[in-house]
């Protein structure tokens, strides 16, 4: 057992460019994500936010460095070992990643049917409870194409929570949602986290609103990271690229809803 939920040590990740060169996304990045807290990973487009999540999940391989989940290395883990690591996670994807051909009920029941030995009655009861909590009762037989963006996110969240994850990863959870729906989703995150107590990692460019949820902020910029304990610490940073980031994304700190 580690004191950190997730630990990055000197992680390098690059992609091949079309001209044959390499684009470095993460350049010897090191940071830790504490247990039971909410960490927001922020940064501009193409700075490697979603890549960071995929590296944590072992969906992509690092070029070099180490990533630990609760003290166990993700790098080099394969097969059953990787599956075992992934059982600790719940993931809410940017587009919710619901299975088009399955109903809401079947989507939410999928991890229970595939990963547990519960009876159909138990699965039915458990799914009914989570759908009720997320205000999705009555939509069980609908297909994802029949749902609004916000409902799809909630179904994705319901599915991700089915196996009681210790770590929840949210990839751009409010993309495509209106401000009211965004606030509802954030409120739901806070409520569920208080109930379940998972470690939350939120990747978002919904700045500054997403900072309301943050216990820690990791800013990705040009392959480097900077970690801040609070929004105030972020705004007070004198690092040139952070000053630029704050100006671009939050404007004048005095006008910021979060920092003000």
């Amino acid at each position, binding site marked *: 057992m580690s004191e950190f939920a997730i630990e990055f040590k000197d992680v390098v990740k690059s992609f091949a460019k079309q001209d044959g060169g390499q684009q470095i996304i993460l350049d010897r990045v090191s940071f830790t994500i504490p247990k039971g807290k909410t960490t927001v990973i922020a940064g501009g487009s193409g700075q490697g936010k979603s890549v960071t999540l995929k590296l944590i999940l072992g969906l992509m391989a690092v070029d070099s460095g180490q990533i630990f989940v609760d003290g166990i290395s993700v790098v080099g883990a394969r097969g059953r070992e990787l599956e075992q690591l992934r059982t600790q996670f719940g993931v809410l994807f940017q*587009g919710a*990643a619901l299975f088009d051909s399955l109903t809401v009920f079947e989507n939410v029941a999928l991890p229970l049917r595939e990963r547990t030995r519960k009876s159909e009655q138990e699965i039915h009861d458990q799914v009914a409870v989570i759908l009720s909590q997320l205000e999705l009762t009555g939509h069980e037989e609908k297909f994802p194409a029949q749902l609004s963006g916000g409902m799809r996110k909630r179904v994705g969240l319901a599915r991700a929570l089915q196996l009681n994850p210790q770590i929840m990863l949210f990839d751009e959870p409010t993309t495509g949602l209106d401000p009211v729906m965004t606030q509802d989703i954030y409120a739901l995150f806070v409520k569920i986290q208080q109930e379940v107590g998972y470690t939350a990692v939120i990747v978002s460019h919904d700045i500054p609103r997403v900072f309301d949820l943050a216990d820690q902020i990791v800013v990705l910029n040009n392959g480097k990271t900077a970690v801040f304990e609070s929004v105030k610490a972020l705004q007070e940073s004198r690092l040139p690229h952070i000053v630029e980031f704050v100006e671009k994304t939050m404007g004048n700190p005095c006008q910021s809803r979060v920092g003000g």
Partner: protein
Amino acid sequence: MLRNPVEKLGDAGLYVLQDMGRMGLYLLLAFKGVFRRPFRMAEFMRQMHFIGVGSMMVIFCTAASTGMVLGLQGYYSLHKFGAEGMLGSAVSLTLIMELGPVLTAIMVAGRAGSAMCAELGIMRISEQIDALECMAIDPFRYLISPKFLAALVSVPLLTALFDVVGIAGGYLAGVHLMGVNPGSYLEGMRSSVTNHDIRLGVIKSFVFALLVVWICTGRGYFVYQIRGAGFGAQSVSRVTTQAVVYSSIAVLIFDYLLTAVLL
């Protein structure tokens, strides 16, 4: 940045090797997935219905038309030598050893292979396959292996259907339209087709089924890693076309190789 031809050639060679390695590993994992529990019987049956039952009409039409054309062309050629009595033998051997397995595989590639490729490609770009992996659900066991198994069972059965309908089509054209003696058509078929010929057709149909399902599902599964495919919906359409073309060419190449080795 300008790159010299040697560098480009080396880059292309490396990509081909990577692709071969990726597809080889994919094949191994697909077979491994067949033996992982719990086996998805419902999905296997759904795929059997989609690949097998769903392709029956197109196979029936293709086989009837091919058999009738073979009957007419065969009669025309054999008539020149006064050997119309050999029509049953010519039609049945051609269908059982060559055209049955080849045309069935190409038809399945066009109808079911393209759909499987597009389905997996869309699942990949919409992160549904990533979602499966994140839930610690093996995408091979869940998605790919039932397709492999269903293709390996249904394509040989479809080939048998093709052979029977084709031979009947040849009979219709040769006997009823061109006036070949029905007894000589059937006797020619009975006396010339051996177990070895049927075995060759069956082996071919298994190999072609594997090629079609392997290439078509593999292209969709690796949609992002295929050079020049692009991104989003465009990438799915491109790899789907690629899957049908590649699997059809592979079927034709392996048809020659198997014939050369096994005949």
